[in-house]
């Protein structure tokens, strides 16, 4: 019995990314406190706003939003070539997500406060067991 050879999995890099059967079915997930209506990115057990234990309603967050603020990071990392653009993107549900902005040259002149962006996902790495990790990013509409 070849027990040690577990089939490699495709995993989301962050818990608030829900993976579909194909990459175009991936979406950002949130939760809404049914007591105080606070919306969170990702799953929650307790509510930081009303101190309640929910219950929380799972919601699907929009895949389009607006850049609230941005920066351009000039330090190379093992996975992202510097320079690269990052942003806080406001979603229509009233929450915001951290993200990298792709599809533009990372130059201040290409980034605007309030610019409309759309989410996409892609594989960004693989661990020693062969599991792959999917991250979400945004690009200008």
């Amino acid at each position, binding site marked *: 019995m070849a027990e040690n050879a577990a089939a490699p999995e495709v995993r989301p*890099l*962050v818990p608030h990314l829900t993976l579909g059967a194909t990459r175009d079915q991936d979406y950002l997930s949130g939760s809404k406190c049914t007591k105080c209506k*606070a*919306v*969170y*990115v990702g799953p929650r057990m307790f509510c*930081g*706003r009303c101190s309640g234990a929910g219950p929380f309603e799972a919601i699907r967050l929009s895949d389009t939003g607006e850049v*609230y*603020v*941005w*920066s*351009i*990071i*000039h*330090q190379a*990392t*093992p*996975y*992202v070539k510097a*320079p*690269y653009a*990052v*942003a*806080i993107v*406001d979603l229509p549900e*009233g*929450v*915001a*997500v*951290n*993200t*990298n902005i792709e599809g533009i040259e990372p130059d*201040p002149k290409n980034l605007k*406060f309030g610019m409309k962006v759309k989410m996409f996902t892609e594989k*960004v*790495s*693989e*661990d*020693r067991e062969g599991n792959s*990790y999917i*991250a979400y990013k945004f690009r200008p509409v």
Partner: protein
Amino acid sequence: MREVAIIGVSMIKFGRYPDRDFSQLAAQAGLEALKDAGAEMKQVEALYSGNLYATSGSGQRILQQMGQTGIPVVNVANACATGSTAFREAYFAIASGAYDVVMAVGSEQMGKQGLLGSRGDPATSLEGRVGSYMMPAVFGMAGMEHMRAYGTQQEHFALASVKNHFHSTQNPLAQYQKESPLDEVLSGRMIAYPNTLLMCCPTGDGAAAAVLCSMEKARQFTTQPIKIAASVLTSDPFSDRDLTLPDINTLTRNAAKIAYEQAGLGPKDLSQVELHDCFATAELLHYENLGLCGDGEAGKHVASGAPWVGNKIPTKYAEDVAPFVDKTYKPTTTAVVNASGGLLSKGHPLGATGVANIAEIVFHLRGQAGGRQVEGSKVGLAHVIGLCSACTIHIVTK
């Protein structure tokens, strides 16, 4: 609650000490603070040790160097506010009447790892994949938020770096004591827009200590006891966006409000401020958070000369600063900000920073700050913020 006095302080020069252990750095600071207080180890009734990287037992290891008198030790970790939170615990120990003499010591040995690097398992760590979580990104975007709201320019933020590096030339305890004119700051290597390298604090090793005493007994030790007029700690309140963009503003505003009430003083009464300029963008935001100027006025405030030692732009920088001066802006406060050179030049050994900021103000209140002395300093405010998030404010007076 009893009145609490600072009777002794010290700070070792921040920098790199690869051949020494953090406990040796801390013990040196502790023993110097005792000497400054005219006190001895056997008079210290409790130790409050702030250190982030040494994890548990930092204070006990410091006592192994400084004197194992068997006193109670409390070890504190609270992000960048670690040292100042240890100081605050020491304050409460005296204020409550539990002890008459205690010590707070903050120390850190960071080596070369620092705020700019990415840590954790590279296969699954968010850092380096979703770069907006990294500290330079957070403070870059915090500055961008101010640009978005008020039209602040990169140059305004850079002026805070010019000022603090200018101040540092008179501080022999600073890690770096080198001036950096505006063009040098702006043309430096970009780290995270709008902060260039000289707009980011260096990391390093260091320690600082303070001996606290009840005001009634303070005069047994010193003729110049410094009064702790306010000691405040806040955490970040709920906001819709703060899980993504840490809100460094609201908790500072909340802390400032409480601190001014506790002290019965306001921003106009401050002779000087040591605030948490981990990045140049942060310094300007905190002018507004601490009430040194109105909302949206931070860029005008730094260009007005008000927060510079002497309350004016040095002649040699007048030409560089001129394009950013708003002649219609009249500063309403005269607090000199970061006379020490700030974290940008002094360095930021995490656990040491909060105690060092308070020590710096004590030097000025006693008239011992040499070439960077804020003339006639009577009231100082020390502010520290750590992400995730903790903010301390101490107001100390003559």
